[in-house]
């Protein structure tokens, strides 16, 4: 059947139309070979926009569709579904990116319009040569890997397990619980963190569908959504319960590598506390009575060194100073973000000091108080009314005077420099990405945002997905958050990870490589180029074979093949050359 192309030029509101004369682009497209219809529309991705494509397919008998709009990363899948619903093979679609690669990066309307016309002409030229591809599905391994046994990982594992699937939890430390295990009371409800964690970890312990590997690290991951093969390095002294272990070696106290097959992966590796000695003006690690908030948790804990009494060198402090934003909101340090928890944990700790030391003078230095969560502002009110003095201004220096500390600041509301003497200073050290985040990012091919935390696929619409299909994020590894938000995100990640597990099948890439047996010499160069391990030599025929499930269609093999025996479907030389020729 000769090609019959429909072209749809999107205004994207004013995103494209502001810079590109979209009507001119549509008019130019109408004159291209085999183009049966060319339209422009304010939002082609909207319902009426989609409808007009489907109507044209039916009424005009279109068999190729070009959408000139945003990046294919945004809506290629949307439009594939649109044409599929109208009876076309989804691979008869070609996206011409005239937003990210045209209107957003140019300002001169005339030349931007000319460029858009050329981008569309190239897309049409390629669309005429597109071929139908088969959509394929594979079975899913019905288990999930959870990397990190903090409260996020444990909650995610519980939800997976409660839904009836296996969850493997890999924890680097010798015990689960993460940072929450180091906390006393939580804000703003003053629940005991140990009790909260205990509720979750006890259920994890007893759950028949959960297997926990402590002293263990993810070292390698291969495969794709539905079928990952992961390698877990197990250090000696592990103390897992081995409920599902059918491998006796798991219990051996030696170094070992465990291989697991899973359908989905949840990353919940947590965070590091900011190293307060990087703010040398506060004298942390110089003065014993300048401590971090996490150290205060230990100091005020009934199981801590003072039995929960707030004492420094055996003495009860009369003046306690808290300092907000240590290592957060700090461009100098490359930590420009707000750590989101410090305002409230400081309020909680000030409350604890007041409870234990009714006579102490308590000062909290703040820049802005961010009490945005449920019950937060009310708790902040309560703490102030407990005679905690909030002073606006971030201290600039701490030094010694006699046997006391002096906190030097400007009270910015008074507009005056001040010195506040203190016996104990608590630094609200912020949340930073884990130093070893790269060890997990590497095998799972996770992207990281500028702040160093793992990057979600979309900040609003896909907050727990990652650029790797089948890998999801939970907790502070994605960015600072409190326990409430961590649990919510863990449950969201579990829910996303459960979708492929419960479907039991996932769609796999149709754009894969194809080997022409008449041209292949079996030299194996393609296998060296393939990072997915999709190519292998068939000993019987002496030719290379491609695993169509493992292949990602990246094209490295096609480039490596000296005899031109490999073609990547949907990106054939003819198609690419046609696109190039139309563009130049």
């Amino acid at each position, binding site marked *: 059947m000769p090609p019959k192309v429909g072209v749809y030029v999107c205004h994207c509101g004013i995103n494209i139309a502001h810079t590109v004369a979209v009507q001119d682009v549509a008019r130019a497209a109408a004159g291209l070979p085999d183009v049966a219809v060319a339209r422009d529309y304010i939002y082609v991705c909207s319902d009426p926009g989609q409808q007009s494509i489907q109507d044209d397919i039916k009424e005009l008998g279109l068999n190729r569709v070009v959408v000139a709009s945003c990046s294919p990363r945004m809506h290629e899948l949307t439009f594939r579904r649109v044409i599929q619903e109208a009876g076309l093979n989804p691979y008869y679609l070609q996206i011409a990116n005239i937003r990210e690669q045209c209107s957003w990066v140019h300002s001169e309307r005339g030349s931007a319009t000319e460029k858009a016309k050329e981008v569309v002409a190239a897309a049409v030229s390629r669309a005429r040569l597109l071929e139908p591809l088969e959509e394929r599905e594979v079975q899913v391994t019905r288990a999930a890997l959870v990397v990190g046994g903090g409260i996020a990982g444990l909650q995610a594992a519980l939800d997976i397990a409660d839904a009836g699937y296996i969850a493997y939890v890999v924890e680097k430390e010798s015990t689960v619980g993460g940072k929450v295990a180091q906390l006393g009371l939580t804000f703003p409800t003053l629940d005991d963190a140990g009790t909260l964690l205990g509720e979750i970890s006890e259920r994890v312990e007893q759950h028949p569908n959960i297997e926990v590997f402590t002293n263990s690290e993810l070292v390698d991951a291969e495969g794709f959504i539905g079928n990952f093969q992961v390698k877990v390095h197990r250090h000696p002294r592990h103390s897992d319960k081995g409920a599902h272990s059918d491998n006796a070696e798991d219990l051996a106290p030696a170094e070992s590598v465990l291989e697991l097959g899973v359908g989905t992966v949840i990353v919940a590796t947590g965070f590091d506390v900011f190293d307060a000695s990087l703010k040398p003006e506060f004298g942390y690690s110089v003065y014993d009575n300048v401590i971090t908030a996490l150290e205060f948790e230990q100091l005020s804990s009934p199981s801590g060194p003072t039995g929960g009494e707030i004492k420094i060198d055996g003495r009860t402090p009369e003046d306690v100073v808290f300092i907000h934003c240590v290592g957060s909101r700090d461009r100098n340090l490359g930590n420009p973000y707000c750590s989101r928890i410090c305002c409230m944990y400081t309020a909680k700790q000030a409350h604890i000091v007041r409870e234990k030391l009714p006579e102490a003078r308590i000062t909290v230095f703040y820049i802005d108080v961010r009490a945005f969560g449920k019950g937060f502002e009310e708790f902040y009110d309560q703490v102030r009314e407990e005679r905690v003095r909030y002073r606006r201004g971030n*201290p600039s220096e701490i030094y010694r005077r006699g046997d006391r500390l002096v906190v030097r600041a400007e009270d910015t509301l008074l507009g005056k420099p001040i010195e506040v003497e203190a016996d104990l200073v608590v630094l609200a050290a912020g949340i930073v990405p884990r130093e070893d985040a790269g060890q997990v990012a590497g095998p799972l091919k996770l992207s990281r945002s500028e702040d160093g935390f793992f990057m979600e696929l979309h900040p609003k619409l896909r907050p727990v997905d990652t650029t790797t299909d089948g890998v999801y994020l939970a907790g502070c590894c994605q960015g600072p958050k409190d326990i409430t938000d961590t649990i919510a995100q863990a449950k969201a990640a579990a829910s996303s990870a459960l979708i492929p597990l419960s479907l039991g099948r996932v769609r796999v890439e149709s754009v894969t490589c194809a080997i022409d047996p008449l041209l292949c010499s079996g030299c194996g160069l393609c296998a060296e180029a393939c990072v997915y391990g999709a190519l292998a030599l068939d000993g019987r025929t002496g030719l290379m074979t491609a695993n169509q499930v493992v292949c990602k269609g990246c094209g490295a093999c096609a480039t490596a093949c000296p005899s031109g025996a490999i073609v990547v479907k949907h990106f054939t030389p003819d198609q690419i050359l046609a696109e190039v020729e139309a563009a130049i």
Partner: protein
Amino acid sequence: METDQTILERCDLWGCIQCGKCTGGCPLSFKTTLNVRRLIYEALVEGDVNPDGMEELWDCTTCGTCVLRCPKEVEPVDVIVALRTELVDGGIIPPTIRDALTSVFRYGNPSLMQPEERADWAEGLGVKSISDGADVLYFVGCIPSYDDRVQKVAKALVKAFHKAEVDFGILGVEEKCCCNEVRRVGEEGLFEYVVEEQQELFSSCNVEHIVTTSPHCFNTFTNEYEGLDIKVQHYTQFVAELIDNGKLAFTGELNKVVTYHDPCFLGKQNAVYDEPRKILQSIPGVEFREMDRTRDRSLCCEGGGGRMWGEGTNPEERLATSRFEEVLSVGADIMAVACPFCLLTFDLAAKAGGYDEKVQVTDIIELVAEVI
């Protein structure tokens, strides 16, 4: 600098969140009405600041603590310098500072000294001219060239260079003020004029490596001489290397307790903290003790930013006085410095406060010269 622009346009201030770390850390904030955080706020909300009548603008020592502490990469000191520029352009300037600027313009030094006498201190020391060719240009600086007390520092450094067989030369009578302070009192035009002259001088003498006495010269050469493609070191960096690679050996001992005061332009502004300590600790016999306020938390001597030429609105209270209390509290016999300004301000304060009998103020290189 375009002075028809507002302060807000000239200084990049929109990042400021008014946290107060600048004024909170300002070593002078307790003794002046100058509040740079408030000036920034005024610029942000009013669009501009009128410096007329703000005598306290001349109090700032440009120590750079405000810049170091700011978490938002705002440079508060720029506001003060920009406001000084407006005053200078309008001719409103303390007479002593005006005289210093005129002197730099006429004589190449701020002290009304004759240019032809600039190298008199080096007579008989066997110091050659850089124009005869040398590996290192020793950039002496104005105060070490002319001031009786600080000339001893230059001479001590020459002794160390000779001892370590360093091939060095000086610019002699050709040397001119680096203009670090000129820029800080707001005379941007004079700064640019001298920079151009100085750069031509450096290139005509094929200078490849400069070592300075003063952290102030070191700072402006390193950070503000645009396009200067020459290795620049403060002498403490250079001497620490000489000691490290065995070229400078000690022959005597100094059985004293020594502490060290970090100069702002060396420490806070250029993060050179370790080399001065390394030198002191390598002197045989020296017991080195740190004061409480050291390194990033060091105090300012009040000698920078033009304060050598103007005493500010509150000359009665000196930060240097409280510094001596700290020196005494660690039991030090000697307070070592590494900056001509620090040396002079502490010397003066020691005499005024009666500390000169208990504490010896000296430059690091003078201690070194005693034991080589």
